[in-house]
């Protein structure tokens, strides 16, 4: 079930009980960066129902291969080799085709390649830390990378992020825009992370934990993790009346 025909229905209202609130004092940076007034709720207009289109021609051959896209010729990034794959669907279960996914992560030692990063773990000269892909007509995607390491960060005196990959996702409309993070099944650090705990709903947290998927490993090469992403659903416009008058 892919979205072959363009759809024009407004997106379903966001279920904020599943998302982190703006103000989460145990994640300290949110205190001064959280709006305090109520959001203005409004049914989507054309400006939100539409969204940018990304043609697969923008992709380079190694964009979905973080093991090689920054590595010197003949070399590769250090770490546990993994495939991350899954499907982008909307809340109706419909595959979201042509969705641009961008991902970024620390290297296997938990170090980011960024000038603001101060963790003492080593930089991997063959690992840049970014990749991207576009879902196929049924919403499926995959990429290759190394499993990122956990890392400490200044919040409490001893807070550590569990291993995670950041995902940026476009759907078909600008109001589906989403940034989230993928965690790894079995990681004991997940449940003590102040950023994970900004999410008020346990099931919503579990939905961000990728499952080890031994059926999709490449034997003698890489293990696989399966991570599905759900974007906002939208109304069918079949029986929708055009409002009269003003």
């Amino acid at each position, binding site marked *: 079930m892919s979205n072959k025909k363009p759809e024009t229905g407004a997106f379903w209202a966001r279920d904020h009980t599943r998302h982190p609130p703006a103000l989460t004092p145990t994640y300290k940076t949110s205190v001064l960066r959280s709006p305090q007034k109520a959001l203005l*709720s409004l049914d989507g207009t*054309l400006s939100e129902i539409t969204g940018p289109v990304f043609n697969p021609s923008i992709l380079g051959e190694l964009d979905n291969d973080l093991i090689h896209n920054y590595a010197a010729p003949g070399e590769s990034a250090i770490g546990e080799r993994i495939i991350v794959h899954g499907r982008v669907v909307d809340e109706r279960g419909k595959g979201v085709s042509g969705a641009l996914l961008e991902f970024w992560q620390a290297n296997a030692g938990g170090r980011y390649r960024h000038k603001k990063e101060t963790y003492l773990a080593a930089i991997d000269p063959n690992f840049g830390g970014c990749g991207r892909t576009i879902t196929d007509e049924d919403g499926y995607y995959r990429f290759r990378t190394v499993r990122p390491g956990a890392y400490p960060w200044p919040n409490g005196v001893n807070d550590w992020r569990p291993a995670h990959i950041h995902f940026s996702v476009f759907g078909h409309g600008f109001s589906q825009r989403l940034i989230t993070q993928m965690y790894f099944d079995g990681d004991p650090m997940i449940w003590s992370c102040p950023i994970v705990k900004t999410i008020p709903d346990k099931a919503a947290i579990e939905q961000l934990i990728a499952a080890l998927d031994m059926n999709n490993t490449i034997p003698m090469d890489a293990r696989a993790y399966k991570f599905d992403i759900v974007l906002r659903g939208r109304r069918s416009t079949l029986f929708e009346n055009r409002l009269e008058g003003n």
Partner: protein
Amino acid sequence: MAQSLGILKESASQTAGPYVHIGLLPNFVDIKGVYESDLGSAMVNEQTKGERITICGKVFDGAGAPLRDALIEIWQADSQGFYNSHSELRGTADPNFTGWGRQPTHMESGEFRFETIKPGRVPYKDGRLMAPHISFWIVARGINIGLHTRMYFGDEEQANSEDPLLARIEHRVRVSTLIASREGNNYGFDIYLQGDRETVFLDI
């Protein structure tokens, strides 16, 4: 028990974090050679139709300091009011304008800057024309879920006065938080995350 609606739930948002640039603007943080250029960094080319404008501003936190690690995306119609999107069924948008841009706030000054064109008017659901506007989406460390808002144009007083979204803002003094001021071809649009001047953010 009735049948289940079989509805899935949207994946929860998580903050973009301090290193969002690695993923979305790698060239900006000197990760060179992975992508030719950063997506969304150039919105117009020589063939793009419409009036060239620049939008500059800062994003302020609750202590009045500009964010130096935020990322902003904008989405807008072309000069005729058409979106370059599959869901745009009213006509064909300018092929030389995607309508989408992405910029960081500067790591020292905190300023963001978009070079784009002034959009045309787009109809509301009931057919009335909305005032020209640009959709903004702001993410950063400390922002748990991306913030949606709109920028309107200070030199469009008549259109702004009849805009259906602006009309929905209960506290009229807050309307001005969405209106950019014009100086030459430059529009100034500052965003306030908290406080007396808090920008109107949208759940849309």
